[in-house]
């Protein structure tokens, strides 16, 4: 297997990458239509006025993948996934506060 010089090509997605709609779909394994629904449901918040010029920040990759995983594994529709992710975000925020208080 050909081993490229990785240090040259390895980037931190969350800090150095933004995605167009097609790029995010390709990277997350979603269909473009699924990404559009995730935007409508508020799971993803791109900048730009319409799907053609949407730009998604790096952290969108993780969120899109999580949403697809939840939809597949719990056999849920994307609106249900959006609610689930809101609740998971809230739990995570509470956990952070517990950790910061040294309670966990």
């Amino acid at each position, binding site marked *: *297997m050909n*081993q*490229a010089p*990785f*240090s040259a*090509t*390895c*980037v*931190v*997605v*969350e*800090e150095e*990458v933004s995605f167009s709609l097609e790029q995010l779909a*390709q*990277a997350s*394994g979603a269909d473009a239509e699924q990404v559009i629904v995730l935007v409508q449901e508020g799971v993803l918040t791109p900048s730009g006025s319409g799907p053609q010029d949407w730009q998604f920040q*790096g952290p969108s*990759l*993780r969120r899109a*993948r*999580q949403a*697809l*995983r*939840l939809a*597949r*594994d*719990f*056999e849920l529709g994307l609106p249900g996934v959006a609610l*689930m992710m809101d609740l*998971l975000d809230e739990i995570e925020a509470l956990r*952070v506060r517990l*950790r*910061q*208080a*040294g309670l*966990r």
Partner: protein
Amino acid sequence: MEFKDYYATLGVERNATQDDIKHAYRKLARKYHPDVSKEANAEERFKEVGEAYKVLGDPEKRAAYDDVGQRFRGGQEFHPPPGWGSGFEFSGRDFGPGEAEQFSEFFQSLFGHLGRGARGRAQGGRHGEDHHARVVIDLVDAYRGAQRTISLRVPALDAEGHIVLQERQLDVAIPKGIREGQHLRLAGQGGAADGGAPAGDLYLEIAFRPHPYFRVDGADIYLDLPLAPWEAALGATVTVPTPDGHVQLTVPTASASGRRLRLRGKGLPGNPPGNMYAVLRIAAPAPDTAAAKEAYEALARAYPNFNPRQTLERTSQ
């Protein structure tokens, strides 16, 4: 390779109905899904559960599995029967992108050939599929940056055209300051494309190996710092471990248990770097000698009016 008893994984009988199977799966998914579960080994357990459901939840695959299963028991050494797979036709969508690759070698040997069709659907000349994998690193690697060789399991075709998992080694430069949950993108290291189109990218999700005493929250690091009662009361300079070596920390006089002392910039490196927080914990020694007992008694005499439970005495009217 071991024969996997998918019925045992889902905790159902071999004659369970499709509804029973779905029910058992949903219950286990709620318990072990890594996105919602904090159980130990949730990820590993869910992988097994998901794989079992992928087969048993689909009547066609279940029938094929049952056919093989008549000759094997869970844990038994398994070799796919000759000509396996050629006699079955499966309909519908099989696996999502990259999904089948996460399953076991046993699964691959039975159903791996189904993934090929999905990949084959991509039009000639299209970009290769992007792949994802998870890499567990030590906290200190994120502090200093590191060169790591990681092993990935990649599906490949064997001589008989079956999909087998091959190990592939990659050298990866872990950048200094990487945070848990962040992704590294390795351009062109994902799935190959046909027709000379560019290969897909490989995304590596970073996880930290749990540390016995450092807790990580984004860029910040937390440490419970035990202090003797007199260190907390009189103040002290103590040596504190950070993931990147030891530092001296000045504990102010009259520090209460639970007080957080900030070591500015001693969290994960970055721009700006995170902070490290030492959360003070007062460790009282046992009065196990006469002198120690006397010291506690002297302390009690010195504080005749001290009420440690003052906060519990707010009137509960």
